[in-house]
């Protein structure tokens, strides 16, 4: 790098002096993976804020029993939209579409993905899907009120705007497929010379496994969404019991996608954690092979467990037994990862910087979420807690505590690299503690209420749940305060913070050999593939 030259002036988000498009067009029609990653990131965070506000309103309504704040119909629409936006517009694309897009090519020593134009196209599909989802709220006969699962027969009968919403889901699925397809091909074809599969950073490994799930599972969601549309518009009657149809088959189709989808959500975040833990322990990652392998094992086994969402639906006992067993099997590779991270930390030279804090938060929350998942995966106990708050708590521990914190960890880890400026570490730590406190106060009471029998999605509840409901709502405020502090701190840091060095954390993967902020063209010639977790001679330069 030229030391007299200010890298801020030629950052990839500044206009490209060498020609090409300018202004808005240089963003929305960009084929640069870094710009597309930032486009995704900004929209995903916008959608996250919108759906978080919906969640806060839901919790506010539930603070006291009785009919307050929202009508029952509004409440149903609120939790449906919270689910649809969070799942399809935030969590599914979260880490892969934003940080995956920016850092996957850099991790493997490439200047872009295999299909840059397709990458831009998939972002446009995301935009169209998001706009359609918003359209479904404000047009027709009211916002969808089915829950994010669109279960038949209700989704066929309700007069609300389900048809538009499922088309939005179809288009968002297409966008996700194209991202996965692009990443798989990129990893196969664009690795720099010497970048063997065993030198691939674990983030790339996790995106590779995710890509396969995206490609192989999402089409089932596509056809399921199309069928709901066809059932509503063409009245085919494929799931209508009166005509011989079977609503249970809908549930199978839905979960054949939607269970593997939770691994689309969690695997990339696990990849982020696998990058962060060794850097801040100054120790090579423990069990590289097993972490890489367990990503593939999760992708494979996770595709065979979908019917554990249907233990109370009247499936045969044999099916329940098999799916319960397979569910326990998929817990093994997840546990392998957790133990490997802990072994990496063991006797490491730990520096408790913000990215590591969020990563440790991930391990805590994911472990609680994962272990309570076994309670749900075991058919006997699931009968007791099925469709209660226990499920909601489990899911939010895994997805918000897992994927959400993984995303925040990635933001704190890579923000200095992307924007070339450093945020305030003390404020970041404060926001972390507020978020962790808020999450646990918000979701842990839901485990207890679930065990006591509080059903999910209910508008009202019995007085005995009132104290814990109240505590849970307080938690949502701590969480909101933490999120506001975190986003404000990151914004201030990326905008006005002190310039970041090339390698502030002392990472050994390739992106840390590049200037901060990232430049228009990353590698001018093929880089030498490093040992991604060997920190001999690699030190933080900040």
């Amino acid at each position: 790098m030229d030391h007299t030259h200010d890298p801020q002036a030629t950052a990839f988000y500044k206009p490209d002096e060498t020609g090409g498009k300018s202004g808005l067009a240089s963003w929305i029609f960009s084929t640069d993976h870094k710009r597309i990653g930032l486009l995704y990131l900004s929209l995903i965070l916008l959608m996250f804020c919108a759906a978080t506000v919906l969640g806060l309103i839901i919790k506010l309504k539930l603070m006291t029993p009785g009919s307050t704040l929202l009508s029952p119909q509004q409440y149903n629409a609120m939790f449906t939209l919270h689910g649809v936006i969070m799942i399809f517009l935030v969590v599914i694309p979260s880490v892969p579409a934003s940080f995956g897009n920016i850092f996957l090519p850099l991790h493997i020593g490439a200047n872009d993905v295999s299909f840059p134009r397709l990458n831009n196209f998939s972002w446009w599909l995301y935009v169209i899907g998001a706009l359609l989802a918003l359209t479904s709220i404000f047009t027709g006969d009211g916002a969808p009120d089915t829950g994010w699962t669109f279960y038949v027969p209700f989704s066929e009968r309700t007069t609300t705007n389900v048809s538009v919403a499922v088309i939005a889901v179809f288009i968002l699925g297409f966008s996700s497929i194209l991202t996965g397809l692009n990443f798989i091909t990129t990893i196969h074809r664009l690795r720099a010379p010497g970048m063997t599969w065993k030198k691939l950073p674990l983030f790339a490994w996790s995106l590779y496994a995710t890509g396969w799930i995206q490609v192989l599972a999402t089409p089932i969601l596509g056809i399921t969404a199309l069928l709901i549309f066809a059932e509503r518009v063409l009245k085919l009657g494929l799931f209508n019991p009166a005509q011989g149809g079977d609503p249970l088959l809908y549930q199978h189709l839905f979960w054949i996608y939607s269970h593997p989808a939770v691994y689309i959500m969690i695997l990339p975040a696990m990849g982020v954690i696998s990058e962060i833990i060794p850097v801040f322990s100054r120790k090579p990652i423990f069990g590289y092979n097993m972490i890489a392998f367990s990503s593939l094992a999760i992708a494979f086994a996770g595709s065979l467990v979908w019917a554990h969402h249907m233990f109370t639906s009247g499936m045969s006992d044999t099916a329940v037994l098999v799916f319960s067993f397979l569910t326990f099997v998929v817990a093994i590779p997840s546990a392998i990862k957790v133990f490997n991270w802990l072994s990496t930390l063991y006797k490491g030279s730990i520096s408790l910087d913000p990215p590591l804090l969020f990563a440790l938060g991930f391990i805590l929350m994911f472990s609680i979420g994962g272990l309570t998942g076994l309670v749900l995966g075991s058919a006997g106990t699931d009968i007791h807690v099925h469709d209660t708050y226990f499920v909601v708590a489990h899911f939010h521990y895994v997805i918000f505590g897992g994927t959400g914190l993984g995303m925040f960890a990635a933001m704190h880890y890579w923000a200095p690299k992307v924007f070339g400026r450093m945020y305030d570490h003390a404020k970041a730590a404060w926001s972390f503690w507020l978020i962790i406190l808020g999450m646990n106060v918000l979701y842990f009471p839901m485990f207890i209420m679930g065990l006591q029998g509080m059903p999910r999605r209910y508008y009202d509840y019995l007085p005995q749940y009132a104290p814990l409901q109240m505590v849970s709502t307080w938690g949502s405020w701590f969480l909101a305060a933490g999120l506001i502090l975190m986003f404000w701190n990151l914004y201030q840091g990326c905008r006005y913070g002190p310039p970041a060095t090339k390698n502030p954390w002392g990472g050994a993967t390739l992106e840390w050999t590049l200037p901060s902020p990232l430049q228009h063209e990353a590698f001018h010639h093929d880089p030498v593939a490093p040992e991604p977790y060997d920190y001999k001679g690699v030190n933080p330069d900040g």
Partner: protein
Amino acid sequence: MAEVAAPLVHKDYHASKMGMWLFLFTEILLFGGLFLLYASYRAKFPQAFHEGGKTLDVFIGGLNTVVLITSSLTVALSITALRRGALVFCQCLLAFTVACAGTFMVNKFIEWSAKFHHGLIPGSEHMAQLPQGQSVFYGLYFAMTGLHGIHVIIGASVILWVMLLIKQGKVTGEDYVVLENAGLYWHIVDLVWIYLFPLFYLIS
């Protein structure tokens, strides 16, 4: 598919092919969901599927099968023609493929019209009053052949677009991966029909 075929940064033949094959997996799985429904309902209502299958026109279905297989042959030949530099012959073969797609859709139109004429219209009173299982059979018939028909139209449009690219000299005997990918897509459209035909027309 268009986007798969033309990376900006550099031409990577293998990457283009790999991307297309991954996309074809997704197509198979898209139909896979419907095949799953078919398998379940067929096991549940074997008699109704037998009765339903008898009402379909094996001649038109068989004719359409021949038409599609022939079109797959011509699209395969067109790639060889392009690589050998026989541009006009290549364009003729592709035009023939598109014509086959048109023939297929006309036959489909005749078939569906006949069904509609007999009151087999999705959502109609008549469909609702059919014995249990039969309306599911026709529902699946319309859903699967309908989705396949949409794919025929998309495939033919892609081939027309590639013909334009060949005319403009953007797809040549040296750089023919776009045509090859379009051909792959056309084969999957053909292949799905190869399964649909016996499952609906020949099971009775």
